[in-house]
């Protein structure tokens, strides 16, 4: 809590100065320390991102300069070009985009109705269902990917975008259910009931009243799901071979690739996610706070 602003010097009107909370040295020190902590922590997070940005955009001739200069020598797309033109990268990029979109559509299409049911109805098995959904969140991706790869091979969707997207949907589904559930809970049931007394069927009441109000939260859930899919490395690595998504493609080259290539790769992976999290930052806390229990 910061101290209130110290008022300007009182005019010579003869009135006594207004009472103010005493800004003791101790309180000032306290506040400064908190700000210091906040800044240091923020720097810890932000600086590496800045550094990879610099690394990725270093011009080719400056790549092997050492010691590196924290202030960029110049900004160039040399590394990016090398990355993007490597075989299969552009295809992998599009596969990631498509897989993300499929994942969002499926996860929300399946998860939102379930979230609505959890929010609006009290029914037998409600707590059990919620428990099942919560526990799937704690499942190691590792243990699911291996047998799924076997299953995929058997039914022929191994090494396809759809295969990866289905796996991602499974990973995202618990989040989709719980987030949409909390979004619908925040919309009072009385609004739907009022709409019903005014002439709406239950479905119409949902479409006219609840859905518009839920849209911001649902959008945030969709974006969160997309990021989940975009970032997945392990499942994509297990489930693809010749048609990898972007992270899988990068992983296969990782040990042989040059550093500049790697830096550009990281940058391309980072930027969409960062932009997206910026867009939904307001919903972050609300989502997680309610999703947790």
């Amino acid at each position, binding site marked *: *809590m910061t101290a209130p602003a110290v008022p300007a010097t009182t005019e010579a009107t003869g009135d006594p100065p207004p009472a103010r909370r005493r800004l003791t040295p101790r309180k000032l020190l306290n506040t400064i320390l908190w700000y210091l902590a*906040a800044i240091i*922590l*923020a720097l*810890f*997070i*932000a600086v*590496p*991102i800045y*550094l990879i940005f610099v690394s990725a955009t270093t011009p080719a001739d400056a790549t092997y300069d050492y*010691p*590196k200069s*924290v202030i960029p020598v110049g900004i160039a797309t040399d590394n990016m070009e090398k990355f993007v033109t490597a075989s299969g990268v552009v295809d992998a990029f599009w596969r990631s985009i498509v897989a993300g979109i499929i994942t969002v559509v499926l996860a929300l*299409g399946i998860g939102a*109705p*379930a979230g609505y*049911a959890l929010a*609006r*109805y009290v*029914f037998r098995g*409600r707590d059990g269902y919620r428990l099942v*959904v919560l526990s799937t969140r*704690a499942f*190691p991706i*590792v*243990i*699911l990917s*291996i*047998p799924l790869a*076997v*299953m995929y091979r058997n039914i022929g969707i191994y090494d396809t975008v759809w295969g990866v997207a*289905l796996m991602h949907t*499974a990973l995202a*589904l618990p989040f989709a259910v719980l987030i949409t559930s909390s979004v619908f809970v925040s919309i009072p049931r009385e609004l739907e009931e009022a709409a019903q007394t005014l002439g709406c069927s239950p479905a119409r009441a949902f479409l006219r009243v609840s859905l518009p109000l839920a849209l911001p939260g649902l959008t945030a859930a969709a974006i969160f799901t997309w*990021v989940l899919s*975009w*970032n*997945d*490395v*392990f499942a994509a690595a297990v489930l693809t*071979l010749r048609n990898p998504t972007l*992270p899988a493609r*990068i992983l296969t080259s*990782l040990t042989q690739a040059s550093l500049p290539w*790697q*830096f550009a790769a*990281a940058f391309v*992976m*980072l930027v969409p*996610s*960062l932009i997206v*999290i*910026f867009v939904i*930052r*307001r919903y*972050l*806390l609300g989502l997680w*706070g309610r999703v*947790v*229990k």
Partner: protein
Amino acid sequence: MTADTIVLSGKRKRNWAPYILLLPSLVFLFFFFATPMFSSFVLAFQTPDGAWSLDSIGTMVGDPNFTRAVTTTLTLVLIVIPFQLALALAMALVVNKRLKGTSLWLYVYALPLAISELAAGIVWVSIFTQKGWLNSILETLGILERGVIWQSAESYWTLIGIIVVAEMWRATSIMMIILVAGLQSIPDEYIEAAEVYGATLWQRVRRVILPMLRPSLQVALILRIILAIQVFATAIALAGTGLTVMSQQTLEWANDIDDDHVAAAWAGLMLILSIFATIGVLWLLPVKDEQQV
């Protein structure tokens, strides 16, 4: 006719709507969680020819990489978790203090959530590589004469160290958000009361905040430990062949060596460790109902 008879012969209809809404998600979860779980179990206990035996498990255990992978993974988990907990708590306390610009701090601290483990690994490669940022800064500031080879395959503990730092950077946000939500549910008055009765910050944290945060701590720890056991891309990016972790072994056996059974055995081992860890946390940090707000 008594009231009871009226009811029994009356129209107590069960609403099927919620069950219909839930059905798709249950079907999906069945195929993508329950079935793989089961077949993973089956896979682990079979050999490539399909016979039931413990051979696959034996192969896993007998492999020279077994001990190294398991100990490395567990070492990483045991070191990372306490540090991450402290870091997450610090961030959560800063956010909860509601300093000026809280939404900025929250956004920055939450950034890593959007970053895939592969991108994060590469980010820290750019820092720790021999001609990377850390050495550059250390030499420029004159702290070192020559850069340290952080990624040396010779020095096991240095490798562990840099992976720990990278993981702390990458994965603390999840814990932080859970803790922030937990902190916000603690009424300010409890902490203020402690302050009035003379508790220092450390004492307030230890004796008031941490105990009341127990449920959140539980969730945060369980989630994080399970994810930590699956540490993957960060280790590969930073340590290459210098050391190995369990998920890496899983992938190798599945894709390179093409033995899904041993891979399933590895996955199963990770699941068992996750379960033990969950039980461990629940046992060490029990949440007594009567102590709740």
